[in-house]
């Protein structure tokens, strides 16, 4: 397998001194990729900026206008977490374009794993609002572009936070299956197991909330037991991963206890979910401890490429088994309730 990554570009202009979502994150990710020493098996997808039409697949036009105007006016704090600068608009459009470019390069062949090294992250961005460090929803824009080509897309989100933006954007879209593992309770306060999708997309959202302290064994088993059967039924033609690394035990943003070895396991699992080779593209989301980010990404890509590498051993023994059992029960109940409502709505 070869690794396709987006061409490097300057994202240093999107910075707020002291803010954890900082330019050194993409530098750490780039160095993890360089350390794989892939030689000619590392392919670069050309730089491009997402067009307005591509952004409109996901975002509202007036939000795009206002965000652009806010940045050109000098930017500032958007909410208690999220900032934008003069350069942020161009950088955010480049991040969205990077995902599209990597997928274009992957479509031309069937032996590639894609990784999109961009910031700011995207999975909290709603159709009409920035939040949680995110301005444009990069993974959603890529998924929507694939759906327009007739593809069925699994978005697997293993960032420690629930990707409320991605969930909301595809809530009623049966062509996209959204699966998220996340710490709960935690920002953004959504992602309960009973959130299973809208009327047109019942069971197209799978949420696996995990308690503080949960380890990789629990997370992996929860994906295998709760998500894998739904994914099997859905039969995705593409797998996009919202690859945040803030579930690592060293990350200051949350309290899950994953190791880089656990991310290698998740990469194997993501690959197994793809029905064809060469159809797994990963997008950098969170990950705020630079060493953990570098090691976890290195382990993830080595695993996805089928290379062997030494990583931290996998974590186990943490809490969460009961929560996963309860989540399975809540999911079934929510799906049943929606089906009953659906039947009664359609009755004469």
């Amino acid at each position, binding site marked *: 397998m070869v690794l396709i990554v987006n061409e490097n570009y300057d994202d240093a202009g999107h910075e707020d001194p002291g*803010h*954890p979502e900082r330019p050194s994150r993409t530098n750490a990710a780039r160095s993890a990729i360089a350390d794989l020493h892939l030689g000619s098996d590392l392919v670069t997808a050309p730089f491009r900026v997402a067009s307005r039409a591509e952004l409109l697949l996901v975002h509202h036009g007036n*939000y795009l206008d*206002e*965000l652009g*105007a*806010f940045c050109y*006016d000098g930017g*500032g*704090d*958007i*909410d*208690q*977490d*999220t900032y*934008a600068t003069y350069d942020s608009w161009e950088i955010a459009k480049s991040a969205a374009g990077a995902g599209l470019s990597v997928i274009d390069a992957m479509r031309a062949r069937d032996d590639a794993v894609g990784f999109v090294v961009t910031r700011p992250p995207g999975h909290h961005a709603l159709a*009409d*609002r*920035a*939040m*949680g*460090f995110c301005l444009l929803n990069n993974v959603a824009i890529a998924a929507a572009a694939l759906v327009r080509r007739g593809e069925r897309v699994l978005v697997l989100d293993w960032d420690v*936070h629930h990707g*409320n933006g991605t969930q909301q954007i595809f809530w009623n879209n049966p062509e996209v299956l959204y699966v998220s593992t996340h710490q709960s*309770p*935690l*920002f*953004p*306060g*959504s992602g309960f197991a009973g959130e299973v999708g809208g009327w047109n997309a019942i069971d197209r959202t799978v949420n696996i909330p995990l308690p503080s302290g949960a380890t990789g064994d629990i997370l992996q088993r929860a994906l295998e037991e709760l998500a894998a059967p739904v994914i099997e039924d859905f039969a995705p033609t593409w797998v996009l991963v919202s690859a945040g690394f803030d579930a690592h035990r060293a990350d*200051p*943003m*949350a309290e899950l206890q994953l190791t880089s070895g656990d991310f290698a396991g998740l990469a194997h699992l993501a690959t197994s979910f793809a029905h064809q080779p060469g159809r797994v593209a990963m997008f950098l989301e969170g990950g705020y401890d630079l060493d953990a980010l570098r090691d976890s990404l290195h382990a993830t890509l080595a695993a996805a490429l089928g290379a062997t590498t030494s990583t931290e051993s996998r974590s186990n023994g943490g809490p969460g088994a009961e929560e996963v059992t309860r989540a399975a029960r809540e999911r079934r109940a929510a799906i049943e309730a929606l089906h009953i409502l659906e039947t009664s709505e359609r009755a004469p």
Partner: protein
Amino acid sequence: MSVARTIAVGFDGSRESESAVRWALLEAHQPHDDVVVVHAAGMLEHLHGALSRDVTPPRVLVLARECNFNEMHLRWFVDDGDACSVLLRAGAPPINADLLVVGSRGKGHRAELLLGSTSLEVVQNATMPVVVVPTHSSL
């Protein structure tokens, strides 16, 4: 005799939100009503641990005393999320607010000029009555 209600009020530490809390304590409140001061904990707040979940912040207690408000009827509630989602959730369990009071501007108010204000979005999407207390409220 009126039925006791639950009044939720958003608090982010800004002066605007203090005006909203004062208004809730002085104007909205009737005997036996509970006032729940709601605070949205964002990602950075989780990182920095800014406000306790269990202990009402001193500033809120000072406001209550200034308004001669019986602390027995005051609750402090921290919910994870952005301000807008957290305030909208006040209408649902566990708060079940009958009325929501918000300041006209929250933190990041420069962005609100272009990116839409939290209070406006709350008003548009709320399932309960909402009072927006102007920034230059005399309270």
